[in-house]
């Protein structure tokens, strides 16, 4: 089984996000970047598949030169090789434009399965996996909690999170599956793993190497355009309810919820 894991580098979820005064973007100066947490489950699952069936794990990542650190993390965890899509023209794209570049990068490589995190914790779009599947002409399944590859490697049984439960699906392969918490426990990169990662093949491709035109990807190839970014509306700190113990405070709270907030 050859598995490709699409990985994105995102600001650490610990980050305080500040919006530029002109509303064009966030301030990136002090941000610490990490692998998108949902993608870590994809890397781990791919490694477990390789351990069971053999084959290879390829990391596919798009972004400026700083994302190489995240690619190395994936390689240090145990992935065999990586493709880095690096071109200024690829920047600022929506899910459609991003999936288009990813789909193009997958042409000419042999793979049986593509894994993507269920969403990136920066733009929270939750679209790229499904869009990529459509562009590749493959089926997809989202929010997988369990994955079993059939012995003939032609299909897989997945448990997908659905409203109120889990759906058990049979999916023909190749397919795109989106991963999230609950699927596995992502491993940490070991020290030997980190050393080895430095020597693993990393294929950097620009737009010309991908064979795409600048107007079909990135901001120019997007179907949605961000016109303005704003900080969230401020929430004023509310009132702390004073009183001697729950017998006094709770009735006051209930009254406020009933009469002021009108939510119960």
């Amino acid at each position, binding site marked *: 089984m050859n598995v490709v894991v699409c990985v994105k580098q995102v600001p650490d979820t610990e980050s305080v996000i500040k919006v530029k005064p002109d509303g064009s973007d966030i301030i990136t100066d002090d941000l610490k970047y990490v692998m998108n947490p949902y993608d870590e489950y994809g890397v781990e699952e791919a490694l477990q598949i390789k351990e069971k069936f053999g084959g290879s794990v390829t990391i596919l990542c798009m972004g400026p030169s700083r994302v190489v650190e995240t690619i190395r993390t994936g390689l240090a965890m145990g992935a065999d090789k990586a493709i880095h899509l690096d071109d200024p023209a690829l920047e600022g794209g929506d899910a459609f434009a991003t999936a288009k570049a990813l789909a193009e990068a997958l042409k000419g490589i042999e793979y049986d399965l593509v894994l993507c995190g269920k969403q990136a914790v920066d733009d929270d779009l*939750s679209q790229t996996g499904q869009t990529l599947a459509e562009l590749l002409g493959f089926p997809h399944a989202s929010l997988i909690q369990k994955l079993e590859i059939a012995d003939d490697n032609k299909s897989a049984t997945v448990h997908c999170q659905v409203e109120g439960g889990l759906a058990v699906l049979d999916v023909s392969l190749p397919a795109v599956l989106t991963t999230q918490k609950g699927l596995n426990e992502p491993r940490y990169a070991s020290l030997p793993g980190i050393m080895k990662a430095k020597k693993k093949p990393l294929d950097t491709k620009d737009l010309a190497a991908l064979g795409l035109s600048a107007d079909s990807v990135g901001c120019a190839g997007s179907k949605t355009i961000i016109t303005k970014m704003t900080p969230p509306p401020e929430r004023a700190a509310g009132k702390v309810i004073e009183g001697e113990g729950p017998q006094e405070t709770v009735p006051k709270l209930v009254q406020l919820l009933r009469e002021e907030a009108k939510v119960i």
Partner: protein
Amino acid sequence: MGNSVLVFAEVKDGRVKKVALEMLSEGKKMAEKLGGDLSAVLMGSGIESLAEQLGQYGADKVYVADNEVLKDYTCDAYAKVMADLIKANEPAIVLYGATILGKDLSPRVAARVETGLASDCTDIGLDDDGKFTATRPMFAGKAYVDLSFTDSKPNMASVRPNALPVSPPDESKKAEVVKVDVNISPDDIRTTVKEVMKTAGEKPDLTEAEVIVSGGRGMKGPENFKLIEDLADVLGATVGASRAAVDAGWRTVDDQVGQTGKVVSPNLYIACGISGAIQHLAGMSTSKYIVAVNKDSEAPIFQKADYGIVDDLLKVVPVLTEEIKKLKAEG
């Protein structure tokens, strides 16, 4: 290209989801401004009778795709029906609820008809030129963006449940029912549903819940979540949890609220024993009212809470449950 608005009306357990009514209410206003129709799509098996309700909430036309093959959701089947409808009717705007199903389906349809999709929007509307615009959170709500769309049509958005108000229904209003021929061969469906296992009760999913009671590290152990469940029961609320409670194994991943869990927007969010890590606050800060119960008066959660009680939640929560029971008994 047309000027109509099309709403995907998701059905769960034989009922139309409330988010569909929210979208019809807003969709009606947009359709009127555009001078077009408001239509809705129903998909499933044995669902035709639900069209009546959609008419009362403003749909002029309801497309009914009623077929055994649509009984269990598969993206392949649903996306085909949606994409075919869009190609045949050329609506200007297509809306989905940002539910688990809606978020699975909508990107696939958008990619098939090669158009833009704004996910999980907290607001949608038309600008002065009649162009569709959407507002959505990023970074789990640490920032918001306004989006416009390129000329590719239709413009699509998934809309977060509880974000838009529902207009009162007009019981005299009837929608025209249009039956959709469902042309799906077994080969079209590459993901077959073998089984659906229920893991939660009849409560709405956290992302759609109107009231949520959440517990964190301050719960001290899984057994104390009984107190949270009791309170949730009297409020008709869904139970949530902080990452600390999920990582400790006290609750399942399904319950996690926050940037690496679910982002929620209920009318009322009651946080019990949750200190308020930045990822958690981001995931629940669009709640209309927030109540915090925590022993630590310095906990960051109190900076976001409308009402706070600084006390031991194990003492406060049972009293709160009793008080609300009394209130409900009084009517």
